[in-house]
């Protein structure tokens, strides 16, 4: 009865730990920010999902205890880890962090050259008017 729960839980938890280790090795060895973010976000998300699912199934089978918090944790990590990686990559690209040596093509460059100039101009104007109008309004 509790043997099958232990087998399933141990298998999923070991798979998850191995995926986390592979993600960390990729995070050390890959050449630039974007490939490292690729490795770190995807496979470590899969690893933590496997570990949490193994925990859930272990407690469900061996104790009969169904934890809604683990379901919420699985859902939340699955939802937010790729979003965080996307935001970090976008901020890195906007600050011109260089790509790897062997990069052949950079298709975002033209798009960001046009749009970033437009955004920077409009933001500067907003900031200047805001700074100039604030003391007048308070006086």
């Amino acid at each position, binding site marked *: 009865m509790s043997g099958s729960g*232990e087998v399933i*839980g*141990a298998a999923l*938890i*070991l798979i*998850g*730990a*191995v995926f*986390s*280790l592979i*993600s*960390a*090795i990729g*995070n*050390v060895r890959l050449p630039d*920010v974007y490939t*490292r*973010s690729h490795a*770190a*976000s995807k496979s*470590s*998300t899969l*690893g*933590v999902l496997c*570990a*949490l699912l*193994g*925990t859930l199934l*272990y*407690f469900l089978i061996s104790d009969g*205890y169904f*934890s809604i*918090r*683990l379901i*919420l*944790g699985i859902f*939340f*990590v699955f939802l*937010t*880890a790729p*979003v*965080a*990686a996307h*935001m*970090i*990559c*976008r*901020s*890195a690209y*906007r*600050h011109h*962090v260089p790509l790897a040596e062997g990069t052949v093509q950079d298709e975002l460059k033209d798009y960001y050259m046009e749009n970033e100039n437009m955004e920077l101009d409009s933001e500067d104007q*907003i900031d200047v008017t*805001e700074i100039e109008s604030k003391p007048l309004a308070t006086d």
Partner: protein
Amino acid sequence: MIFDTLMIIALCLLVLAIMANLYRVVKGPSSADRVQALDSVGINIIASIAVFSVFLHTHAFFDLILLIGILSFIGTTAFAKFLERGVVIERKR
């Protein structure tokens, strides 16, 4: 027992993963590398807490999984906004 041994092996693998990510935190050339590696450390800590609660056979730590997930996401988002725009909370009008 063999089950406890397997849990300790999984914890050792997760500690190795955290060490490799900390190497990237120390060495990483840009600050986006460091933020990404710290986010990955947070995710590995979530997995470690899950494995540890199985190892101790208790339900008491499941709140921590959700809490560390939320805190890690909020911290990463705030730092990404700070790196991108220079401020965390913007003052639009």
